[in-house]
């Protein structure tokens, strides 16, 4: 499972200012791939609003080389699954995935796409990994734009390392572990009063 704090290893080793560089071919290829993600947004539910937010100038994930949406799966290599997938939609999603050209990656946006969330019922697929392999999960209902950006960076990191194991975006800050204004401090203050 990839973590963001592990920085990508340097792809290029400069050679003493002599105007040449040595690297492995796979590293160069991965480096090129990670900054030219053509995305196919498969947007089905309310997470789509958050997707619009993160793709618009305020958060702007085009900064990370992932700006061009392609509404044909044949021209895209990153499938964003944004929102709840119902059983009736599963064959459509699978077909779109199969139409994408290799190499391709899948990103589950939000809790519904990741694990189904509270839609644990007769109609819904409990996570898109039931029907297609998923590279990065972004939990949250909906996820914060920061989490989405973390997910994109995590995916790029995994592409650079050639890692196809599933990765999950972790929270930047855990309110329960916050020592200054969080739950621990609250409990301490209560117990000192009592």
């Amino acid at each position, binding site marked *: *499972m990839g*973590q*963001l*704090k592990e920085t990508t290893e340097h792809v290029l080793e400069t050679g003493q200012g002599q105007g040449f560089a040595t690297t492995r071919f796979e590293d160069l290829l991965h480096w090129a791939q990670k900054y030219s993600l053509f995305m196919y947004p498969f947007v089905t539910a309310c997470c789509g609003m958050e997707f619009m937010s993160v793709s618009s100038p305020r958060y702007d994930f085009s900064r990370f080389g992932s700006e061009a949406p392609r509404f044909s799966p044949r021209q895209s290599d990153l499938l964003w699954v944004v929102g709840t997938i119902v*059983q*009736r939609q*599963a*064959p459509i999603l*699978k077909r779109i995935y199969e139409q994408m050209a290799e190499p391709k990656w899948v990103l589950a946006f939000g*809790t519904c796409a*990741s*694990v189904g*969330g*509270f839609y*644990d*019922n*007769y*109609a819904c*697929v409990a*996570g898109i*990994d*039931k*029907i*297609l*392999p998923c590279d990065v*999960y972004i*939990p*949250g*209902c909906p996820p914060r734009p920061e989490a989405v950006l973390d997910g994109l960076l995590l995916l790029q990191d995994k592409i650079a390392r050639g890692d196809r194991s*599933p*990765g*999950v975006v*972790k*929270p*930047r*800050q*855990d*309110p*329960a*572990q916050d020592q200054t204004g969080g739950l621990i401090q609250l409990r301490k203050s209560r117990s000192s009063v009592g």
Partner: protein
Amino acid sequence: MAQALVELLRSEFPQAVIASSSQHGDETVIVDAASWVNIHRFLRDDERCQMQMLTDLTAVDYPDREPRFEVVTHLHSLSKGHRLRAKTRVGDPAGERVEVGSLTELWGSANWLERECFDMLGVHFLGHPDLRRILMYPEFEGHPLRKDYAASHIQPLLAYRDAPNIEKLPPFDRHEGMSFGRQTHDGFASEEDDALSRKRSH
């Protein structure tokens, strides 16, 4: 205001009106299933009723009752401003013969509402022009909103892919569904989580 409607129905259909009740000013009338369409036609066409709009049509499953299902309509008069809820009771305990007349000839909106009701609860509307599933896929068996449909029963249209432990793939286990987990970018928050992570990676 709708109390007068109930009285009117009682006088016009003395045999068909089984019961009526009122809650917070909303009148409900329970009628015989055989008169279901006739009563609705009267409610729509009569000068004193003028119920032009079928707001909603649905059904309720009471598994312990006989008849088992209640079909419910919500009616609204746009010209007179009054509303009425009508119910009828149909179906045997096994849920096999659940039949009531269709209201599609009276209101166009009844078409899809009755299809949904058939799809979710298995109520057959006699005389409906196109009674087939509207929400679920044709391969779906049973009616999911019936009380005897198991809450955890799914019928995947597309077979789940052949992967080990497909029911629960990592990394979702104890952190599933939490808006924030115990894991952070700075590592695992507790020894327990750390051990769990190491166990998972092997």
